[in-house]
């Protein structure tokens, strides 16, 4: 069996490993549950001189991008991977040292750089106790030389939760994977959305053994197979392979529409109150935007409609005690939806601060993947008001049951009473909901409640 051997993990020296004089730079572990990353760009090649702080390479997880800086100076003695390779975390990516220094023993696999195929062909990779001492000679990824046995119950359970049972380390007799092992894997991993489960099952894709926030999508064959393809063109057009993130977005958006019963209701809210609050905030030097106020109103509305603050899980609904608010953020890499957990605990200023933090983290690529999982949020707000959009149909981030689209504010005539009509600013609200989970009536009542909250928002600024 092909695969990586001699993988290392040094808890004390997470990103650097010293062996003789040369220093290996590993693929960092970003986020609790990330198993591997894509090497998106090599900023330095073999032979280049590097100084401390130079960017060595860029890499991304399923939704976030990162850059790895040099922590030692020297020459790049070897690079083991190509751009586009999927590299398990904690594996050596390149070596920095003095010219002519030996790099023996630093290669991920006895001298031969691992290939994409090697990654592809290791379906039974298991992360074993990453806290082991660096000196431990045995490989930390356990490869079962025989097909690992999985009990029927464990198999059924794993299938239900989209866990790759064969990749687990079995605790049953002879290493048989038993239900306990799958249960442990389930509890160790964030919940997997029904959509992701379906995709994994349909696509024959493997969920990561320890689970990463995105329900095994990091393991999709597309992720690893297409990354290295160069752009091609015929002069009239250019064929540009999709980035992994684009693919993920494409897949989840398409799957969302395919796998749920979505429709959108539009409704306007009198924006005078909210605009006034924005003015007050500004006057007081507070960075509270219209969007922050809308999100705050939404949190209040959600507290009154628990069935909307929920996940639809096929044969059950998961109602959340707190509001984990997702916010669609447009970034250079594409759409990202970070979550602010327990948003209902926050004041409007607190919420504003948290929303800005996560949005910024998305833009810089430093967001924790754990905060990007669709299952992490209980409801999402997508605000296109800044772009002047007057009406749109946002796509639900499954397994959430609804998403609110916030539109631009336009003046609309309003009956002010006594036969007096005037133009007042109205904010368009577009609620897409999953009709499997909600009926039109309650969706409408919820949308109306958002409008009421916006119109009557009572906060101290």
């Amino acid at each position, binding site marked *: 069996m092909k695969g990586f051997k001699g993988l290392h993990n040094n808890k004390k020296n997470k990103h650097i490993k010293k062996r003789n004089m040369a220093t290996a730079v590993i693929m960092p572990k970003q986020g609790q549950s990330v198993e591997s990353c894509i090497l998106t760009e090599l900023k330095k090649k073999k032979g280049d001189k590097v100084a401390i702080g130079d960017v060595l390479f860029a890499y991304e997880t399923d939704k976030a991008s990162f850059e790895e800086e040099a922590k030692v100076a020297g020459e790049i003695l070897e690079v083991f991977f190509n751009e586009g390779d999927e590299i398990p975390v904690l594996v050596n990516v390149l070596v920095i040292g003095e010219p002519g220094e030996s790099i023996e023993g630093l290669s991920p696999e006895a001298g031969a750089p691992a290939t994409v195929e090697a990654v592809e062909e290791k379906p039974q990779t298991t992360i074993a106790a990453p806290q082991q001492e660096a000196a431990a000679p045995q490989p930390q990824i356990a490869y079962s030389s025989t097909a690992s046995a999985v*009990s*029927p*119950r*464990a*198999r*059924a359970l794993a299938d239900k939760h989209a866990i790759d049972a064969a990749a687990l380390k079995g*605790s*049953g*007799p002879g290493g*048989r994977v*038993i*239900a*306990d092992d799958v249960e442990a894997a389930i509890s160790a991993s964030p919940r997997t959305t029904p959509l992701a489960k379906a995709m994994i099952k349909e696509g024959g894709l493997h969920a990561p053994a320890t689970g990463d926030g995105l329900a095994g999508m990091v393991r999709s064959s597309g992720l690893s197979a297409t990354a290295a393809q160069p752009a091609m063109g015929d002069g009239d057009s250019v064929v540009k392979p999709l980035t992994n993130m684009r693919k993920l977005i494409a897949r989840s958006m398409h799957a969302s529409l395919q796998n749920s019963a979505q429709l959108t209701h539009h409704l306007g809210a009198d924006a005078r109150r909210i605009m006034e609050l924005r003015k007050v905030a500004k006057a007081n030097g507070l960075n509270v935007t219209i969007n922050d106020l809308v999100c705050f109103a939404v949190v209040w509305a959600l507290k009154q409609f628990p069935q909307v603050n929920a996940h639809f899980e096929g044969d059950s609904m998961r109602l959340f005690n707190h509001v984990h608010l997702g916010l669609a953020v447009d970034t250079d890499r594409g759409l990202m939806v970070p979550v602010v957990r327990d948003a209902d605990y926050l004041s409007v200023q607190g919420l504003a601060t948290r929303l800005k933090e996560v949005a910024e983290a998305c833009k810089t690529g430093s967001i924790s993947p754990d905060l990007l999982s669709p299952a992490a949020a209980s409801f999402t707000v997508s605000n296109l008001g800044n772009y002047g959009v007057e009406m749109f149909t946002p796509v639900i981030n499954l397994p959430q049951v609804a998403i609110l689209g916030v539109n631009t504010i336009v003046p609309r005539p309003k009956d002010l009473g006594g036969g007096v009509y005037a133009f007042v600013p109205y904010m368009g609200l577009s609620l897409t909901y999953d009709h499997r989970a909600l009926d039109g009536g309650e969706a409408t009542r919820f949308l109306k409640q958002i409008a009421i909250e916006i119109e009557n928002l009572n906060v101290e600024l």
Partner: protein
Amino acid sequence: MPKAQFIDPAKVRAKGEVTFSPIPVNAYDKNVKEELDAKNFTKEDLVRIYRDMVVIREFETMLHAVKTTGGYNGVEYNNPGPAHLSAGQEAAAVGMAYTLTLDDYIFGSHRSHGEILAKGLRSIEQLSDAELDKIMNDFWNGATVNVVKKNFSGSTKELAIRFLLYGALAEIFARETGFNKGLGGSMHTFFTPFGIYPNNAIVGGSGSIAVGAALYKKVNRKKGLVIANLGDASMACGPVWEGLTFAAMDQFTQLWEGDMKGGLPFVLNIMNNQYGMGGQTCGETMGYEVAARIGAGVNPQQMHAERVDGYNPLAVIDAYRRKKELIEKGEGPVLLDVLTYRYSGHSPSDASSYRTKEEMELWEANDCIVAYGKELIEAGIAKQDDLDAIWKEIKDTMFDTFKLAIDDELSPRMDLKKNPELLGTMTFSNESIDSFSDATPEVNHPMEENPRVKQIAGKVRFVTDKEGKPVSKMKQYQLRDGIFEALIDRFYKDASLVAYGEENRDWGGAFAVYRGLTEALPYHRLFNSPIAEASIVGTAIGYAMCGGRVVPEIMYCDFLGRCGDEVFNQLPKWQAMSGNLLKMPIVLRVSVGSKYGAQHSQDWTSLVAHIPGLKVVFPVTPYDAKGLMNAALQGSDPVVFFESQRIYEIGEMFHEGGVPEGYYEIPFGEPDVKRAGKDITILTIGATLYRALDAAKELEEKYGMSAEIIDARSLVPFNYEPVLESLKKTGRIVIASDASTRGSFLNDLARNITELGFDYLDAPPVVVGSRNWITPAYELEDAFFPQPSWIIDAIHEKIVPLKGHVPTSNFTDAEQIRRAKAGI
């Protein structure tokens, strides 16, 4: 061992000798004319004897033609089934049947066509037209008689003869219109309305069953005698000898009281055709020279044995007239050695290579029908023309019957394509019947005066008393009390109920289950049998066939081998093989031993569970024992009721409120959750339940594993649903019992659970049975029977490793393979 019978050493040690009376051989010396002159027969009777012999001869000739030439009178027919023909033996059969009335029953062998026709023809002669019409029209709602009625305009008696021939022939040809719906066939066909009880394909099979029928007649005060028609070679069979010992027990004349005093109304009629298949019983395979000699070894009356010339119907009739009288005086049983000869081979495939042509020709020259016909002519009773006319009429009738019986439209076979489960529905009768008798049950005192009943009344019916303190052994209501309560209740409800076995009276059964019943019941309802398990079970079968309920007991499970044919071939088969005409309300009590080594400690539930047609239960709590015994005694099916000697004293620790005092039934086939748990299921059969409970305790305390324990209670039938429900929860299952593992019913459970619950399984179902070797002495039993530690070790090795557990027994795959290779 009744105390009433004092064994005086002076008497039994005194010098003396055993003397025998001469056994008459072919003593009859009259002829037709003399009998007619003595007015022992009417002319018509004498002619009818001829006719009846001709009917049998032609019936067998027809079947012989079908088997050897593929047709009869030019009409082709293939009969793949057996045909053990009795051409040559007609005088013996007709003579045997002549004196019998409808109250007299005959049982037969594989070669009994002649006997059933003879008895049937005799019954038709004795019955009025109205009675015959009723019998025929009631039988299968007229389905059988309707076939022969069509286009027939003769008398009722003539119709009845056609009905008899057709019913038997259609049965032989496996037609649904046959006497037993085609399910019995040539070797089993019978017709109880004419007093014809089952024939038996097992040599000597009727030897004990017929004795049981005689017991039924005696105990239930029914008129008539019972004949077992057996071949001469079957005298070698142990069960036949056991039947004889049972039939000749001294207690019938010495201990049974009042009108019950007297010998059994039983005749062992040896149809001595002098061959057992190809073996010659006189001179080769037996040593008795004259089969009648056997009677001299049975009892002082020598069973009134004599040899009779079975080639002369009048000689046989003469013998029966005399023997019937003895039986009516209560001097049975009787043994008759009726000498005869069969012309055909054992079966049509037999080339008779073991006998000479000269021998066969000589017997044919002395043919019983020809010789008797000559006597009729000599006595002036009939002319040759008259005899020829009889032949012609019979042949015509036989040909008509043959054509009807092979007509697929008139005589269809059971449609098992359309009703594929039909035989399944016929396997058990599943009836609920309070009593098989209208009589008032004979008991010695009101139930509440019974000393055992009084004793039990003072017992605590749960393992702890009201304060939750453990009950002392003396005050504890035990498992044996549960069985007793069910039994005594039924004895007071059903007058037909009898129970017997070894040490059942006085001693109260070897395990004290029946203590108190001796006081409650007269001898004829509870008695000691010979130590002869084949007769204990065999007689019970005959008793039940006649319509009585019976509880035979064979003490140790290990003795099942001693009644193998009765338990495996007779008990389970007769309900279906009779076309559901018979019921089999028998509860066979079998006790699984312990402490007594290799031949007294085996759990053979698997053996009986393997045989279709038996219900098999193994209750191990007082509540279950009483409820299942009540259900068994209320039913109409054979139940093998297993008990465990390890736990006769155990108290009820599961059923809330203890064992109810009143009547209740526990349905067969429902396993019972004895301990709730969530991590592993342990399914047990028998007393292993208590070892599993110990294991569960240790699992909980040491390994934090919560075990759910299910007691199978029944093996056949068995409802898998509660087990699967448990499995859904736990995903793991150990199946355990005291039976040796190889071929154990545990494996059957495991296989079905695997198939039905595959996706719930977190590990293969693991079987923990006894080792495949002898049961050692009690002190060494831990090395044989599953121990709590074995269950834990098996879980650790095969299901889920238990942290820190160090196994003491070897459940590894390698060991499993090694053992199988070694055959242990």
